[in-house]
């Protein structure tokens, strides 16, 4: 009996590990499948560690991966392969990084704020290994340490396009109530919410309107959070709460959790309420296409371009390690096209948005935020 038990445990354990391993099986299959036969001169390998949202989060992990692939497409002669390891829990971050350390990666890209500590430690221990971290910098307090030369910090001033998103939402709201919520109260999330809030306040000032923001206040830094980037039900419940309080435009800043909000908006729409939303990070009409008709716009950041540029710099030997800040001016952050709403946004509002864009670019308007990049 005893032996059978042991065998049973072993079998089950092996099965669990197998599936875990399967899911960590680098994507390579689709992306680098043909690359093994590419020119022998190419030797550079770019590696990426996702955070727990996973490679298909339709948000920053997916965008980072798109940047990796774009880099390979841009310079296939130099970049031999791009590969990634997914993190199932936060305990995997350091583990995945050290796996890559032993594989001779030309650059290791870590995705997200939450991976700061693991990245910093690895970078300190391996000063010759190049790193790039998305959404994290020394000046935002995300990386703590003495400055390391081998980390490229890719950050985005999303208060700027959040500001535009807020202004647009305020202009489009019929109930004079708009809402936003976050995944977790961390800087890369609240900076969007700050910008959104400030954009609404600016609209109120310009139009002597009284549009209210539910779910966030830049001054007090208090508001609503789903406490998760995976709990879609929370996104739906929060959206229902907003809708029942009279909000008609919702801006979730919670990655995939926004899909729950999209469902709530769809339900409200089918019961005859006019409720819409703005997507975050990526163009929602591409990443969550089934809900495109509810998206007024998407408040995006150009993670893919930044990651691609960083990987290429490492491949070309021009990697310097420093801060890249995406802004409206360098097109590192922007509002996505309005798609379904293109004809429904009043031209006067579009003209105002263009003007504000210029004013932000020239520094005349500085969207308020307490989350520096």
């Amino acid at each position, binding site marked *: *009996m005893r032996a*059978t*038990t042991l065998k*049973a*445990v072993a079998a*089950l*354990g092996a*099965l*669990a590990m197998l*599936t*875990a391993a*399967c*899911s960590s099986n680098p*994507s390579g299959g689709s992306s680098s499948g043909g690359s093994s036969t590419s020119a022998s001169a190419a030797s550079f390998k770019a590696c990426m560690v996702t955070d*727990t*949202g996973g*490679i*298909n989060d339709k948000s920053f992990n997916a965008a980072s991966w798109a940047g990796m692939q774009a880099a390979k497409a841009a310079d296939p002669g130099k970049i031999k392969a791009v590969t990634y390891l*997914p993190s*199932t829990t936060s305990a995997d971050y350091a583990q995945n990084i050290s796996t890559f350390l032993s594989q001779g990666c030309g650059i290791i890209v870590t995705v997200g704020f939450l991976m700061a500590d693991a990245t910093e430690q690895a970078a300190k221990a391996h000063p010759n290994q190049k790193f790039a971290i998305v959404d994290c910098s020394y000046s935002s307090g995300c990386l703590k340490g003495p400055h390391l030369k081998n980390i490229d910090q890719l950050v985005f001033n999303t208060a700027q396009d959040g500001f535009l998103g807020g202004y647009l939402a305020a202009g489009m709201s019929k109930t004079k109530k708009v*809402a936003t*919520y976050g995944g977790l*109260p961390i800087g890369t999330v609240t900076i969007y919410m700050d910008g959104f809030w400030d954009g609404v306040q600016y609209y109120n000032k310009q139009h002597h309107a009284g549009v209210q923001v*539910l*779910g966030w*206040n830049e001054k*007090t830094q*208090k*508001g*609503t*959070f789903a*406490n998760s980037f*995976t*709990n*879609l*039900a*929370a*996104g*739906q*419940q*929060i959206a*229902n*709460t*907003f*809708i*029942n*309080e*009279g909000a008609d435009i919702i801006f979730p800043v919670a990655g*995939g959790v926004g*899909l*729950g909000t*999209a*469902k709530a908006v769809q*339900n409200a729409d*089918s*019961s*005859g*309420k006019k409720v819409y939303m703005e997507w975050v990070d990526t163009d929602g009409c591409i990443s969550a296409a*089934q*809900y495109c008709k509810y998206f007024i716009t998407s408040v995006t950041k150009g993670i893919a371009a930044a990651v691609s540029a960083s990987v290429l710099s490492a491949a070309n030997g021009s990697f310097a390690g420093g801060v890249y800040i995406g802004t409206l001016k360098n097109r590192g952050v922007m509002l996505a096209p309005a798609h379904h709403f293109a004809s429904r946004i009043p031209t006067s509002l579009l003209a105002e948005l263009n003007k504000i864009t210029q004013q932000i670019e020239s520094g005349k308007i500085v969207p308020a935020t307490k989350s520096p990049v």
Partner: protein
Amino acid sequence: MERVTAITTAVRAPLSPGRRYAAAITFIALGLVDIMLLGFFSHRGDAIFALSLPGAGTQLPSLHAPAALTCYVAGGISIALGLLRAFVEVSRRTKRLTIAIVLLCFLIAVLCWSGSATTTPLNVVSLLQGSIEASIPLILGALSGLLCERSGVINIAIEGQFLAGAFASAIVASAFGGLWLGLVAGSLAGGFIGLLLAVFAITFLVDQIILGVVLDVLALGLTNYLFDRLMAQNPNYNTGISFSSIKIPVLGDIPIIGPVFFNGPIFLYITYGMIIVIQVALFHSRWGLRVRAVGEHPAAADTVGIKVLWIRYRNVLLGGLVAGIGGAYLTIGSVGSFNPDISSGLGFIALAAMIFGRWTPMGSVAAALLFGFSEQLAYVMSTLNVPLPPTILNMAPYVATIIAVAGLVGKVRAPAADGKPYVKA
């Protein structure tokens, strides 16, 4: 006279003076919080409570409560009850009633305090409706745990059963366009994890706690992998279709109660059915008696001819099927789309609800409702710009749990043979 003394001693017996004063002190402390913190710091003015959903057929007038005054009254009642508990010995039923009243007073004070901070009315119907919806998976998960543990098998794998159910129902419903088919698939997927649990726990006598955790990791890895390989590549496998709400005629039109209890997805009514069936079957049927016997004293049950292992197999499978339905709710019952780790720990909260509910269906339901309500309350309060940091607000469900467990539940006892494999001597 002797009889009376006997009865009073019997009533008094389980209560140590320490515990009695603990209740009194807690009541008075909560009363002081109502007055000093919530009352004094309320904005002068009314807290507005909306009693109908916007756009509902019949609109009730909103309730206006003077915030500070209401807090003072609520605090006064709590302190009075605290003094009562300190000096007067009351029956068990009255004790529970006082706890309920004090918690309700505290809740009302919190709502008034938060409601007075804004001009947006606090929508009571929305709050309750959200609480019920948040409780559905917790109730189904807790019932699943209960079915297993009453027969003596610990089910830590609820989380894994949720994930398997959520994934299977989403992919089947999306690929074949049949929501009911998805529901069946979700339930079966949960049942499959239940089967693994049964085989390894009952036949191979694997430690049930470790086994449950292994199954959770297995389900997480498996669904993540399949999501990456199937759903992410082909959006047609994750279209986000879901059951729409069903409103019960007449009952659904009752103000407040109607939208909360009689207007929800089909899962709401399935849950009602499950609660009743499991409650009745467990305590008023031969099946239930046998299950409980196997969970308490399998050797004795065996000697009277009950097939212990068969009953355990059957219950663990049933539990898996029920949790699978809970998982299906997470996708096709609510948000439609599947996402890696969509259950986000709900299975463990369901497990906690079952324990706090003392392994009874009704207790589990009450605990699940409490969790659902406090989660929803945190959302509602945060949308009203309540002057509390978001991290503190999100702690609310857990604080409520601690208070409720300490005050209402006391010592809990698991089925005696819970987690102990049965081997015929």
